[in-house]
């Protein structure tokens, strides 16, 4: 009888310690998960920031200025443009041109 009691006591103590450990572990993991979440949010915001920055760098104003000043390009006009037309029924770059 005494032996069973001792055994049960041991079991109670062991599960209690285990419970504490699991609780601790779960909180630790949760806080890590939380940290990861907030990191993800930060990264998402960084993406947005960089996207805006990229957009600012590629704004028509800047592109035009660089093209004009650095690359010495100028605006095209219809006088120097050849317009290609596709047959209306099969539009698209793969459409086969009719050869006369």
């Amino acid at each position, binding site marked *: 009888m005494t032996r069973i009691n001792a055994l049960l006591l041991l079991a109670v103590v062991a599960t209690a310690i285990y419970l504490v450990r699991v609780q601790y572990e779960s*909180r*630790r993991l*949760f*806080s890590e998960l*939380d*940290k990861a979440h907030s990191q993800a949010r*930060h990264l998402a*915001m*960084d993406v*947005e*920031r960089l*996207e*805006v920055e990229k*957009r*600012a760098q590629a*704004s*028509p*104003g800047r592109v*035009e200025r660089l093209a004009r000043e650095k690359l010495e390009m100028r*605006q*095209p*006009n*219809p*006088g*120097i*443009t050849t*317009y290609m*037309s596709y047959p209306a029924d099969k539009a698209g770059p793969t459409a086969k041109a009719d050869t006369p």
Partner: protein
Amino acid sequence: MSRSIQYTSSPLLASRTPVWRSKFVVAMIALGFTGLGARAAYIQIINNDFFQRQGVVRFARTIELPANRGRVLDRNGLILASSVPAASIWAIPEDVDMTPAQSQQLAKLLDMRVGDLDKKLADEDKTFVWVKRQVDSETAKAISALELKGIHQSADYLRQYPEGESAAHIVGFTNVEDKGQEGVELFFNQALTGKSGLRHVIKDGRGRVVEDVGAVVPPLPGEDVQLSIDSKIQFFAYQKLKEAVVNNRAHAGSVVVLDANTGELLAMANYPSYNPQKRTNLSGEQLRNRALTDTFEPGSVMKPFTIGIGLESGRIKPETVIDTAPGSISITGVTIRDAHPHGALSVEQIIQVSSNVGTTKIAMQLQPSEMWTTFAAAGFGERPHIEFKGAVSGRLRPYKTWRPIEQATASYGYGLSASLFQMVRSYTVFSHDGQIIPATLMKTDNPALGAPVFSADTAAKIRKMLHMAAGPGGTGPKAQTIGYSVGGKSGTAYKQIGKGYGSEGNRKYRSWFVGMAPIDKPRIIVGVMLDEPTGGQYFGGQVAAPVFSELVQHSLRIMGVQPDISVRPQIVSIAEDESF
């Protein structure tokens, strides 16, 4: 003997203890346990609420999950406005203890004067002072690297406008609280603003979140707003307008580019403008979206409407000849003049050379009610339905109060007023087979549903006249552009100075041009207005028409519209002289 207990058999230790003593000890222990039990019951059952609350106060926190403000996009999905993370710098003045070198460093990072910074931190009675709000994240990192005592940061958002000043009047801006103040940011503030979420958590002693309590309310991010603006056309429009204003030494200017099929606004720019990100020392001059908020007498731009009524009612035909000699006409004692006397003109030529006398003679055949009805149907005197706060209605007085001279002047655009945007929109009547279509700032793929003002036949006839006006012998030949046929009407008006229109040599002008291209099947309508050009030239056909020409050229190319008139191929390579 019976009242005592003997604990040992050793006679040496045989001191006798009274029984009551052991009973007393047992009773004491029992009392102790009862006390504990009672206390436990008190904590767990009777006063449980109080202790629960205390626990919550110490460990439970409610975290607000901020919702991002939606983005403003152009028709191709390019960003016109977006929120990026930023930091706001604040301080507890009492805790701040900086060396002069440190405060100089901080002031430099924050782009502030040291004096201003010191002044902010001087009042030690305050427990909280904003040093600077919405600092970009790089600066924030540099500041936290300084590890200054008493200087703190909190997360914030900063609105970025990559298109800068060219689209400033349309997009508008937000204040530090992220609330829209102008333009689209103001009009769509509710849709753009998200709803922040909530989260109840338990934090441990070190401030880490260890558990969620209850359900999380996720944040509802703001919706993106996609505009009909094409940022390439918008930029080009702003650029060309700016050049024109500067070259003609004008006071200000506006341009509007409208899609003639859908009623979408492709570009709307004003100069002077401002950078929505650096809004210090802004004046109303810069802030105003003139194209929508400033009205003026539309002048010659109205003539096609008067002629249209005549054509529609069958009173005149394009070939009908009207004698405009001697270049002036007297209506109830007031003389109306042409810039140059022309003699006999056909109706087409009246538009082509913009004859006030000819238009007046036609108007005298019309009823005031007819004119008023048509002008009102074309949107004059009515606030335009556009996604912008502050658009004005202009003025169109009821026809019952018109005197004959007023009917005459109204026929060529005086005595009523409209914004540039209203004028541009009114020209959809001619571009859209006689129907006026609603204009919008939102992207749409559906062709607009119009309300008929004229018949398609009349509209086509007027288009031909507008084409003549923008051609050789017209008032705006400078509106012509390579590859595309254009049509349009120029306008020049004296501005009011005090009570009159100034005297000869002391006049102020306003010049504009409104037209469309390609003329047979218009795709765009463009309006250009310059306020007080002082560079020597002031006729709409001279200062505004060239801007129109460039804008048509550029916009149609971006829209992928093929030229409708044959172009003489140009050889463009500029050969360098060969070196020997």
